[in-house]
Every structure is written in structure tokens, then in C-alpha cells.
């Protein structure tokens, strides 16, 4: 079966997957400045990218908090472990903590984010900043 992908040629981000490519669909993609590619691989924006112009599986990463709920007040804390699978892992990975960028140093693909504490009840979400290259489920820590 043939699939049709549209991607941003500037960033390599896979944007759409279609099982048919009507002239109207192709025209819409071109108007949006996207490149259309054909592939026999089922790929979604969550799993693949077009970095370098070729369909590539995103690098798998994992964010693992030691707890998903902490007590506010500044004493309790949560630590998020970071792991990047595969050969030649990066020396660091940038995460977004409620939108704030925080670099995590990695040793052999593993590291941990600075401890998270909360002064007040709130929700803290942690996700990978470069979501085009990496695939990792975001995590949420609720401060109560």
C-alpha cells in the first residue's frame, strides 16, 4: 500500500499522512509550501520525520518521573529521568518545563532533569523541545 506524506522541507517535520493524493490535496500542500513524498511505510508525525529529506524514524526517548504528584511548599520534589535510545546518543537534550527550556546532560544516553519543586499547587509538564527529532511521551507532575 502506498502512503502519501507531506512535510516541511525547511524543518523536516512530517505534517500529514494520506492514503490518497488527489490533485486538490497536492495543491493544498504545495500552497502551504510543503513537499509531498510517496512511501510504503506507514508513518505519522508522532513517529517519523523527514530530516535530511528522507523518511526517518524519530529517535526514541523516555521521560520517567520518580513521582507524578508532589506536595507544594518547596520541600517535596520530583526528579525526571531522561533516556535516549540508540547508538551515538547526544551529549545533552533540551526539555521544556512548562515552556521553559532546560538542558539535561546525558551520559551514554541517560541523565536526569534538575529536581522540580513547587511553591504553590500547580501543574508542571515536561516534554522534549525538539519534537521533530525525538519521540518521547510528555510527563505531568501535579503539585497539590
Amino acid at each position: 500500500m502506498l502512503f502519501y506524506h507531506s512535510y516541511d522541507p525547511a524543518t523536516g517535520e512530517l505534517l500529514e499522512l494520506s492514503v490518497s493524493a488527489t490533485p486538490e490535496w497536492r495543491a493544498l500542500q504545495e500552497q502551504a509550501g510543503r513537499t509531498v513524498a510517496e512511501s510504503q511505510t506507514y508513518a505519522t508525525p508522532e513517529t517519523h520525520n523527514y530530516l535530511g529529506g528522507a523518511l526517518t524514524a524519530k529517535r526514541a526517548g523516555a521521560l520517567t518521573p520518580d513521582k507524578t504528584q508532589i506536595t507544594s511548599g518547596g520541600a517535596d520534589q520530583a526528579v525526571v529521568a531522561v533516556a535516549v535510545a540508540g547508538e551515538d546518543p547526544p551529549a545533552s537534550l533540551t526539555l521544556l518545563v512548562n515552556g521553559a527550556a532546560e538542558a539535561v546532560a546525558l551520559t551514554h544516553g541517560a541523565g536526569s532533569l534538575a529536581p522540580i519543586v513547587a511553591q504553590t499547587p500547580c501543574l508542571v509538564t515536561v516534554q522534549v523541545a525538539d519534537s521533530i527529532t525525538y519521540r518521547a511521551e510528555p510527563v505531568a507532575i501535579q503539585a497539590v
Partner: protein
Amino acid sequence: MPSLNASATAQNKNQAKVEKDLASGKLVASDPTSPQAVLAALEAAKNWDQGREALKEIFRTLLAD
């Protein structure tokens, strides 16, 4: 206009600020519209004018959207 409760809930979910505490190396999250933060701001006020400004800032944030 959304209710204060609804806005406060939305703020609580989406707009908690996170800053790095350089001394401890920890990431400190806080919601400036939470009751604790409101009380802390009012307690920190040294006079009526400062308290009024703190309240105005809190309501500005709450009603921002």
C-alpha cells in the same frame, strides 16, 4: 466573561511559572494566582497601596483572557 473560578482553574493548569533556583539547582514552579501566592503577596505588602497593587496584579492575571 469567564468566572474567576474558571479562570483560576485555567491558570492553574496552564500558566504555572517555572524558574531555576541557581542556589539549589532546582526548578521551582509556582502559580501566581494560587491562594497561597495571593496570600503571600498580601502579607508581603507593607501598606495599603502595595496591597492594592498586588490585588490589581492578581486580578489582571486572572482576567487576562
